């Protein structure tokens, strides 16, 4: 047993840090205030460096980066607040296409995604189905060698900047829900698609996408007809490797320490000398080390070729729930000043803590809610009876 990162991974960490020093600018981070957590220049630079294709498993034809190196890459991106939401989606999309796609998708879409030239987004959730993803109702009907798609998707984040949506559709409504699903890769410039912005509390822009008699050739189908659930499970498997999300708190904690050192209370004292403030800062740092332990553990398991599942749910559950707690603690710590947004010239660090406070709730919802993850732990880790169908 040895939790020490191998020297090779630490060398790679230095390389990633050097890369970020060269390519990640404060303007890129600030630009995400428009709601899109994506920087085209950074995305292309990451792809040019070979890290996007590198993150795709070797057995699928990707670079097969060691999962420990991948873990380091994701850790550094998060610690530096790099707007890289599109990276994980691209890696998952390419992996799904290379595993289940036929010639057309493999030769046209996969290379464009891998080079960073094109972006993908995920079309799983619908207005009436979120966690119950297999209940999707967006309908795809075969018409000769074409398909006609009608329906709507919710939370198609990045759709307004993406080129393709990985669309989960219902192709047979008369069988149990998991058996009547089919996946498509849909070019977002196809006639009949409408993208509407969904504004959020965290300023992050998501989308609702509408599909009105969208006609698509069969070459855009991903996987077998009515076997979409198999493809979906693949997506979840690849998502675990590239999920990230283990390090949302460190920038908030750094900002809180900075504030606690600079601020002066009415009696002239510094918050950093207050026991309760110090206590909260250290408790948050402990939670970060728990997250880091989870991240290194899952990376080491993957590196050994061991499949992990529930550990990923635990990591996501713990990281997002503790992040929410930290944001609330540090907002409170600042009192009324904590409420100031970046529009106020006096906001500490451009309102960083306040922004994180508004962003944090979504992390316990997207990519598997905390409740779904608790279910998965209860069933998969503890062997308790399944509580839903």
């Amino acid at each position, binding site marked *: 047993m040895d939790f020490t990162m191998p020297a090779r991974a630490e060398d790679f960490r230095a390389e990633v840090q050097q890369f970020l020093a060269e390519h990640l600018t404060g303007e890129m981070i600030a630009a995400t205030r428009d709601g899109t957590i994506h920087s085209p220049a950074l995305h292309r630079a990451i792809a040019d460096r070979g890290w996007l294709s590198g993150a795709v498993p070797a057995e699928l034809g990707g670079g097969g980066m060691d999962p420990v190196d991948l873990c380091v890459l994701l850790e550094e991106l998060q610690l530096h607040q790099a707007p890289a939401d599109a990276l994980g989606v691209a890696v998952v999309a390419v992996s799904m296409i290379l595993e289940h796609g036929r010639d057309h998708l493999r030769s046209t879409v996969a290379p464009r995604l891998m080079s960073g030239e094109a972006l993908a987004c995920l079309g799983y959730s619908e207005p009436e189905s979120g966690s119950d993803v297999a209940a999707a109702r967006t309908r795809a009907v075969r018409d000769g060698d074409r398909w006609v798609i009608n329906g709507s998707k919710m939370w198609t984040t990045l759709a307004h900047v993406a080129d393709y949506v990985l669309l989960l559709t219902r192709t047979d409504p008369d069988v149990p829900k998991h058996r009547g699903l089919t996946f498509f890769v849909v070019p977002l410039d196809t006639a009949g698609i409408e993208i509407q912005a969904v504004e959020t509390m965290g300023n992050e822009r998501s989308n609702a996408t509408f599909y009105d008699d969208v006609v698509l050739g069969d070459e855009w189908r991903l996987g077998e007809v009515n076997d979409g659930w198999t493809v979906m499970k693949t997506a979840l498997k690849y998502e675990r490797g590239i999920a990230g999300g283990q390090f949302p708190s460190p920038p908030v904690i750094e900002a809180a320490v900075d504030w606690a050192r600079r601020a002066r209370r009415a009696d002239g004292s510094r918050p950093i000398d207050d026991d309760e403030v110090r206590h909260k800062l250290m408790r948050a740092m402990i939670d970060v080390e728990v997250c880091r332990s989870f991240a290194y553990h899952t990376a*080491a398991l993957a590196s050994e070729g061991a499949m992990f599942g529930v550990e990923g749910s635990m990591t996501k559950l713990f990281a997002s729930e503790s992040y929410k707690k930290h944001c609330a603690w540090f907002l409170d710590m600042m009192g009324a000043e904590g409420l100031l947004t970046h529009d106020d010239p006096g906001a500490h660090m451009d309102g960083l803590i306040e922004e994180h406070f508004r962003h944090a709730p979504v992390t316990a919802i997207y990519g598997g809610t905390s409740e779904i993850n608790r279910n998965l732990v209860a069933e998969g880790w503890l062997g308790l009876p399944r509580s839903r169908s």
Partner: protein
Amino acid sequence: MRTRYSEDQQAVAEAFGDLFAREATPETVRAAEAGCGFDPGLWRKLVAAGAPGMAVPVTDGGGGASLVDLAVVVHEWGRRIAPVPLVEHAVCARLLGSAGAQRELVTAVSSGELIATLAPGPVGPDGTARLVPAGAVADVVAAKHGDNVVVARARPPGAARPNTADLPLADRDLSDAETLASGAAAAGAWDRALAEWKALMAVAYAGLAGEVLAMGVAYTKQRHQFGVPVGSFQAVQHGLADASTRSEGARLLAFRAVCAVDAGRADGARLASMALLFGAESGRFATDRVLQYHGGYGYSAEYDVQLYYRRAAGWLLQLGEPAAEVARLADADLGPKAA
């Protein structure tokens, strides 16, 4: 990087898992509670198995195993909340050797013939160390007294101060203790011993939490209310899932801390302290949830949950106030408070 046991470590875990399951049953734990929280028969079996000195260098009469290997045994010890002072003894044995204690003392402790402990708190002006872990049964007590690491050898009182967790806590007179090391050498050796104790107790907490959660799962699967197993209710499932998640995180952090301390890494002491604080909190949360999901039976003396519940509270407090430990962490990380 390998975050799982090696094959050898797996074999050690199984062997000691068997030994503790056989020799440290809940009945044994209860019997020890009637005395001073110590089972001499179990201690002799651990001595026969070479556990007390396993992580002492061979040149000091020990088994030459790593701190990580010792942690594998401690994890099994924690699972059975076994009434023997394995962690205090093992840490003190390593301290005595590294701080240059007399050879005869080091080998007697390494073999387990003498029981040793360390007093984590300060020694009072009258030379008394209060509420020393394993103080009721230890023949040898090491402590930090001023700038010195001191060691006292004396007949143990054989009686504990009655306490929540039925731990062998006792006050010890260290006024006749001899000085082992002074100044920077003493500080280094003592800090390392404390970091080892914290990291190993964090691992013990992971064992405790894992076992109590297994108990909770078994009970809630078998116990029916309203015609269905209690464990099929989502409120119960989610409480157990949260407790399992924290306990697994605590286990990983604990072993990561042991690895860092063992390798002498700069972040070892910080991780050990964090692992202990988080491990204790997770252990208490797990015991609380499992007691709750047992209903009234969890509160009864007859069921075993209460044995774990009380130790989950007690183990950490042997170090002193948790808030003081957090304050020490903060001083190291954030710098000391302004006067």
